[in-house]
């Protein structure tokens, strides 16, 4: 199709190539910008905002004003800063749960794919079985199991490390969620990585590496796993919004983040109660939540198109 020179170029700079393709995808670029702005507001601007838990019953359900940019909630708390602080929790849940699940998924899938044979078939049977188990149900129970532990952790941190109590509570409150979600979300990725490793280990560069005297595991971690990165990045990006949604669902059911701490799920739940009289309490968190999920999903789709070698051929 093309001449030799461009062929080798494409081989050495797959990531650069993908980046160029990515940049042409306007929706994906817009998604990156939107997500960056959201993160900037939640993690930087939030520190300069009002205390999200400052109750002021005299000023409940107030409309937008210079004091409270988008009004206050049923307890007179500033909605804007509650959304930002809630965003911290929601986004962190997404990112940390993804990190945990991606780590487990890569290692599990890579080992299964690399060893093959009996080990592989047993490991994959385990995945198949876990796949049929309703995820949310286990998360709910697991998170109940871990909640006690998180309370103790919070007390320990506050008394031993002298951290700010409010901040510590906010973080430890959601720790069980992070782990419950992360521990159970690795199944799909394990399958993807396994399939990749299976096909990669037959390729020449692996043979070349082994013939240079590297051990099997070195080859696996240095040469095979980095090559599975493409699908992993795509899957990881797409699982972030999934986890954010799970967190919101659990919080909505009263099983995730606990009041007075906020998360987008909590805010939407609280807002839904006052939908008829004060619809902005549902509308604002709902819109921010959905826009973030939009951005992450479109970003994942864009990455898939950009990184997918099959699609790039036409």
């Amino acid at each position, binding site marked *: 199709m093309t001449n030799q020179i461009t062929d080798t170029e494409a081989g050495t700079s797959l990531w650069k190539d993908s980046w160029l393709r990515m940049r042409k995808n306007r929706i994906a670029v817009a998604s990156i910008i939107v997500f960056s702005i959201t993160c900037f507001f939640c993690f930087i601007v939030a520190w300069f905002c009002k205390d999200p838990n400052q109750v002021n019953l005299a000023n409940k359900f107030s409309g937008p004003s210079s004091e409270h940019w988008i009004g206050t909630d049923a307890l007179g708390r500033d909605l804007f800063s509650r959304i930002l602080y809630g965003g911290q929790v929601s986004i962190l849940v997404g990112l940390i749960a993804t990190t945990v699940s991606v780590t487990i998924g890569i290692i599990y899938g890579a080992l299964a794919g690399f060893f093959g044979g009996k080990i592989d078939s047993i490991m994959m049977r385990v995945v198949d*079985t876990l796949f049929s188990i*309703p995820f*949310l149900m286990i998360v709910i129970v697991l998170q109940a199991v871990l909640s006690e532990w998180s309370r103790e952790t919070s007390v320990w941190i506050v008394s031993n490390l002298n951290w700010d109590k409010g901040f510590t509570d906010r973080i430890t409150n959601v720790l069980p969620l992070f782990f419950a979600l992360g521990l159970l979300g690795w199944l799909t990725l394990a399958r993807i990585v396994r399939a990749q490793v299976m096909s990669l280990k037959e390729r020449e560069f692996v043979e070349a590496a082994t013939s240079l005297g590297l051990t099997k595991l070195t080859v696996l971690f240095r040469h095979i796993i980095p090559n599975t990165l493409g699908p992993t990045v795509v899957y990881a990006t797409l699982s972030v919004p999934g986890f954010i949604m799970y967190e*919101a669902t659990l919080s*909505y059911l009263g099983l995730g983040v606990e009041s007075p701490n906020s998360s987008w799920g909590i805010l*939407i739940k609280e807002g839904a109660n006052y939908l008829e009289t004060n619809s902005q309490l*549902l509308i604002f968190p709902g819109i921010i939540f959905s826009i973030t999920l*939009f951005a992450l999903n479109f970003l994942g789709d864009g990455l898939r198109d950009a990184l997918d070698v099959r699609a790039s051929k036409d």
Partner: protein
Amino acid sequence: MLRFIINRLLQGLLVLFALYTITFFLAKAMPGEPFTTEKNISEEAKAYQRAIYGLDKSLFEQYLRYPINILTKGSFALSTSKGRPVEDIIAQSFPNSLILGLSALGIAICIGVPLGVISAIRKNSWVDWGAMSIAMIGICVPAFTVGPLLQIYIASHLPGLKVAGWGSPADIILPALTLGLTTAAYLARLTRGGMLEILSQDFIRTAKAKGVPSNKLITKHALRGGLLPAIAFIGPSFAALISGSFIVETIFQVPGMGQHFVNAVIARDEFLLLGVALFFGFLIVIMNLAADILTGIMDPRVRLGSNQK
């Protein structure tokens, strides 16, 4: 085919057993204890109750006793928070959950599959773009936002629809719609992907070279293979519907099984928890089996492959 089904059922039993084991030990590890609803309960009374429910036995004995009782006596034990047999609670709430789940699945299929097919045929047109944008909204806007919005802006304006409650057939519509939308969105995306994959295959070109008109090209040649990813998703999507039902039942006050599960966790009611979990697990196993059988019917290669094994 029979061997295939038996094989799958055995696998399903394994799934249920794994589900039971995980749920059992997690339930045991949950902090707090049952019987805290009645306040000022004495230690003796507590011990007495524990003995009634068999909670004084060793962990291992309890672990074995529960499934044995189910198999021999058909008994799912007593709910510690409600004091009623778990099977009664399930029997009462299950029909509601089933109706809700199946209507939601039906709505999801009726919306999602045609949308996906049309998008694939009109790839990169405004129809495709529009349908996929709607699908993306379905994925990104949570049920607990859609539900209240439907309640306020649809239910209160249309006669015959109630904001919440479960009595007349019309009450099914809004909860099922809320529950089905996300699944519909996923189905639309999967169907589109599957159809695009099939439409790029060589045999579609062969059919075209035979002079097959384009509508028949879709219905006769492409649809069967193109729907396979969506069919394979029916099992997992049913699991997702069950998860979603926890929320939708709360919003629309449907007396289904989902709320029992959530309440069981909050009340540390392990028998109710186990019963509902196993029942949901059973439903998912059945739906997965149905999806597998359907895949076998649609894809002759799968059918034969399983026979040869």
